[in-house]
């Protein structure tokens, strides 16, 4: 192999007491891809995200970003290198306006307030939140909060954006908008790794899908192949349903 992989996760394991939240998981992401991680509840998807971004320490294995070992680095160090994540439960700063929230992310790349502000305004225009820039972040609807979260992440100028369930709880219209937004993010040169339950989004967005079950990677491939895989169906629907289908 000549080129260094963009994100290279090598045999990551993470134990909580006796529970193997992540068990020997390996995968890679190429620059410009959209890759989805799916799996039933408790499969270890969010833990995997936290291991990559330094929010959890890794017990075994290594993570490389653009060839650099980022295993067990601090979250702010990893963010500075260009790997930015969101959390499953939307996080915003409650006593700030929408614009100020985005600016807080922007300070990672600029120090002058004026620069940060104008860059944050650009991000809000990009995600379609300009009208609500002076609203308090808590006044936003769920869908706008998720947009805000994406805006905050983008203000940090990520090379790899990791979104944890950014589609959950959205109406159909909002879902379409979010899918379009993520496409737009990728078109702007940002590689995207998502954890997602909403299969419509997974099918449409993903170049590749990785399936986790009980901490282990069971299948990886193009979305259409993955959903037809018997092992995936068994993981999601249980042995019995699989047997009936046969």
């Amino acid at each position, binding site marked *: 192999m000549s080129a260094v992989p963009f994100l290279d996760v090598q045999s990551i394991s993470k134990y909580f007491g006796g529970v193997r939240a992540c068990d020997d998981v390996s995968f890679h992401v190429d620059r410009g891809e959209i890759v989805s991680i799916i799996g039933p509840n408790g499969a270890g998807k969010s833990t995997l995200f936290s291991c990559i971004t330094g929010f959890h320490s890794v017990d075994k294995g290594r993570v490389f970003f653009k060839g650099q070992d980022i295993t067990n680095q601090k*979250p702010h160090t990893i963010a*500075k290198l260009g790997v*930015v994540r969101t959390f499953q439960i939307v996080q915003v*700063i409650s*006593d700030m306006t929408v614009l100020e929230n985005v*600016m807080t992310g922007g*300070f990672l790349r600029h120090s002058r*307030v004026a620069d*940060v502000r104008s860059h944050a305004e650009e991000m809000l225009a990009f995600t379609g939140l300009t009208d609500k820039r002076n609203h308090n972040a808590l006044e936003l609807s769920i869908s706008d909060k998720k947009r805000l979260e994406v805006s905050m992440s983008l203000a940090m100028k990520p090379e790899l954006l990791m979104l944890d369930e950014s589609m959950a709880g959205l109406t159909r219209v909002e879902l379409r908008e979010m899918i379009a937004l993520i496409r737009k993010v990728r078109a702007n040169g940002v590689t995207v790794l998502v954890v997602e339950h909403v299969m419509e989004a997974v099918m449409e967005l993903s170049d590749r899908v990785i399936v986790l079950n009980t901490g282990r990677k069971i299948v990886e491939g193009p979305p259409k192949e993955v959903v037809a895989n018997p092992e995936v169906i068994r993981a999601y629907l249980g042995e019995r349903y699989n047997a009936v289908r046969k």
Partner: protein
Amino acid sequence: MGMHTISGKKLAAGGALLTLLIILPLVSSSFGQHVMIITFMFAMCGVAWNVMGGYAGMFSFGQVAFFGIGAYTSSFLVLTFHLSPWIGLVAGGVISALLAAAIGYPCSKLRGHYFAIASIAFAEIVRIVFTNWDMVGAAEGLTLPMVKESLTHFMFHSSKLPYYYIMLLFLLLAVAVCYWVSTSKMGYYFRAIKESHEIAEVLGVNVVRYRLFAIMISAFLTSMAGTFYAQYILYIDPESVMIMPISVQIVLVAMLGGANTVLGPVVGAAILIPLSEYSRAWLGYKGTGVDMILYGTLITLISMYQPAGVWGAITNLMRRGK
């Protein structure tokens, strides 16, 4: 809504207020001047508390430790090395900031009540150490020698006015620092940390480092107020500059006025300190505790009906009016 651009109106109001504060002591009684000096001093401590408590969400109930160290450092240097209190002022600030960092670092995971408890413990340890430390006078404290009055000696006998103007300048400095912090990268990061460590980390904030910045700035400013107090009263002991009620007073000043606003603690001090000084002067000597009852009632009413603080409520009203 320009939080970062000061409008002409605000500037005019600030100028008028400042002019008033410059003229007011000239027509006040000596006791009136004293009340204003103590008000400014607590306002300064409240502003300093606000940097770490209001913005960064670290509720310290141990600010008196820095106040006391400021008072002791300058006094000790005056007595032992005959250094100017102004040198002691800086030295005290530096020692306070370093000690704040040394104690803040192992506490970097503590939040909310746990941080508050740790801060109380810290201040109590400092008090007990000073009460038993012979080199700094132990329980007897330190008495500053009378010298010729001058700015270099930070000592004035004929009038309280120099103390008044020096304290006013200190307060303006603290307000300027807090304003600068609140509108810069640091202020944004502090507010992210206050929201949750997790979101701050997501946003790329080095939480440990920025918490230490907040604590150190706060400690330095509080220490300055302590040095001022020592030069103003000329006698300090652990019971006057290191006791918990001072820490509580500092928190009250900030909360009452409005934490998380630059001027809130100043407004809080302007209400609370004259109330406490005058009610003590008028009612306190009878030993009935009426002054404390009044004081407690006011605090209860404000925390029940205006949790954003007086200044917080006013700024909210002005914002709504626009």
